[in-house]
């Protein structure tokens, strides 16, 4: 048995840590690339959302490398993410690839148990008692690493706009992530985190610079994965913008565990409440949060908002319509970037540069 999982930002570090600690054989799919996306595009159609294509590409590449068991997060209605597995299974079958599929349900329901029954029965045969006993420890280790990755990324977002040598932060951030990834024991992990943090803080910075503050909102996959959004976070940072976002892997895990009280998750409830002036109902996924966050960020004195969404995303399309009004009502520049399979990295760079110039101009006039 060889387990594989899709890419989502630095989620592979989390999944890898679980599998490694519990002693389950695994294959990390190759880093998402143009080839991954091309594979996904080839086996779907133009109006299916971009995350679907990227994830499908990840699976195809991993299966070709010898993986045989796919672990995929499930989600509930109303967004399409909840039916990814149904469609991707048929596509892989049609391609003649062999696989077993395990969907982690968003909530433990009878349907989830019933529909996953066959797969789990077989998996249980292949997993040893040791694997199962070590699994909770693996989860703990994975969670620790996840939190470490997020802390490092937040630090990088703070440091990046002030760096003197362009691109230095990104290089060091990658390095720091690899230390976290390579740690095998809680002790080495702790050392890795500390080392990573100081490594990032030691970057030569121009501390007198006051960067613009911009919030990134939108569909979670496009917000979290730099391969999907063509590094919007990094690009903005290197243009001298301090970026914030509230959509993190851990936030969504906590949300589905119904632990809404934990700091970052509770912030999202605040956003949700704020969106009620424009939206009378929970549209699903990130729609309401995107709108609410834009409103509150404007009140908090942010300079702008970047809204990311995949082409034809159902909930975010509603959000983007409403955000044009929010931008006018609250006088905050909002840039909506609709992402699809086209090679638009250069265009995004230009759009972001123009956006930052506009922020500068707005500040001068005010």
């Amino acid at each position, binding site marked *: 048995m060889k387990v594989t999982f899709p890419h989502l930002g630095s989620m592979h570090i989390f999944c890898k840590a679980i599998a490694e600690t519990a002693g389950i054989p695994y294959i990390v799919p190759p880093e998402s690339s143009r080839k991954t996306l091309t594979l996904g595009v080839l086996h779907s159609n133009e109006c299916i959302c971009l995350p679907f294509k990227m994830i499908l590409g990840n699976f195809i590449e991993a299966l070709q490398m010898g993986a045989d068991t796919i672990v995929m997060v499930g989600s509930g209605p109303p967004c399409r993410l909840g039916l990814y597995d149904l469609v991707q299974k048929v596509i892989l079958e*049609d391609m003649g690839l062999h696989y077993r599929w395990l969907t982690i349900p968003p909530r433990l329901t009878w349907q989830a148990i019933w529909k996953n029954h066959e797969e789990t029965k077989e998996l249980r045969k292949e997993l040893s008692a040791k694997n199962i006993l070590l699994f909770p420890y693996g989860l703990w280790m994975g969670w620790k690493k996840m939190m470490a990755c997020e802390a490092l990324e937040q630090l990088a977002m703070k440091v990046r706009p002030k760096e003197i040598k362009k691109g230095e932060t990104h290089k060091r951030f990658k390095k720091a992530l690899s230390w976290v990834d390579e740690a095998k024991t809680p002790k080495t992990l702790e050392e890795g985190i500390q080392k990573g943090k100081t490594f990032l803080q030691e970057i030569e910075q121009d501390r007198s610079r006051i960067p613009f503050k911009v919030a990134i909102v939108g569909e979670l996959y496009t917000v979290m994965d730099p391969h999907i959004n063509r590094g919007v976070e990094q690009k903005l940072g290197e243009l001298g913008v301090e970026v914030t976002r509230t959509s993190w892997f851990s936030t969504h895990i906590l949300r589905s565990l119904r632990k809404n009280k934990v700091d970052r998750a509770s912030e999202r409830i605040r956003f949700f409440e704020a969106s009620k002036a424009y939206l009378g109902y929970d549209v699903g996924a990130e729609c309401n949060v995107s709108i609410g966050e834009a409103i509150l960020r404007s009140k908090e004195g942010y300079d702008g908002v970047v809204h990311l969404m995949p082409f034809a995303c159902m909930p975010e399309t509603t959000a983007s319509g409403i955000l044009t009004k929010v931008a006018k009502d609250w006088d905050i520049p909002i840039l909506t970037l609709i992402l699809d399979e086209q090679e638009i990295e250069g265009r995004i760079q230009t759009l972001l540069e123009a956006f930052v110039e506009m922020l500068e101009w707005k500040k001068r006039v005010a």
Partner: protein
Amino acid sequence: MEEKGRLGIPRALMFYRYFPFWQTFFETLGWKVMVSGGVRQKEKIVYFEDSCLPMKLLVTHAIQLKDKVDHLFIPRLVSLHRIYIMCPKFRGAPDIVRLATERKVSIIDETIDLRKGGVSLRQSFLKIAEKLGATKQESKKAFLEAEKSFSQFQKEWMDRINRIPTEQLFEMDIPTPPEGREASWRVAFIGHPYNLFDTDINKDILTLTKKLEMEIITSDSLSEKEIDQEVFDLSKEIYWSSGREIVGSLFHFLSGEIDGVIFLTSFKCGIDALLQEFIKRRLKVRGGSSLPLLILSFDEHTGREGLMTRLEAFRDVMEQRKENFKCQSSHEVMNRR
């Protein structure tokens, strides 16, 4: 009864299924129901948001009506089934229209969520009536009337589709003619009701097919059980009621005694895009149907020539299949001799 005012219903989205119900309900309450006209060529579609064509048409129709009516009726359709839900865009539709009309017209956007139980439809409509200032008794009566006329309408629906021009399908004072034309082909039309019956979306494909002597069948003729039978064993439940209906009825018709299946989708419809891929792949993997299947995707283009060509080709395929079938059976007869 004196007229209480004007109530506007945009000719878009679920209008194409529930209009008879809505009309009777509001007219019994004493309101004059105003329906928007088509977009046709002169007036332009309003692009308030970058959504699918049906959603853009909702905004366009609502703007057409906004100065002529006292209220606009755009219910927030969360779920029209006891388990399954509608597309998420429906949840934000009233809000989008409110912003597009610059909050200048009153919008009745009562939430309709049938997952809450059997009486929730009634409760929602009683609340709507209350907002319009009707008494409890009046509203209950109106609801019963609406239910009655809707079920009458549903009985005649299949005949209506085949015997009345598409644009008059929902004009309730036009009775269904007792006799239709002869048709040589029976073709199932699958898709969201607005894709099937909105001539602004589908360029009046139904009239074209009627000209080609095709009889139209839709999923409305199937019972819920027949649809469920085709989809209950999927590895995951399709949770959109419309998506479920599309996949279920499509597989049902493909294994049935008809000549062909046409699936109408609109460009950028999230549900259709995903399920279309599922349908294609599953047919390839499982096989089992030799019926011709045509998938047509519509957007703002208005030309009908391409559509006509595809339909004619589709008819030719059906013809070829019938002939092959005849040859085959005569072969069998020969062999037996």
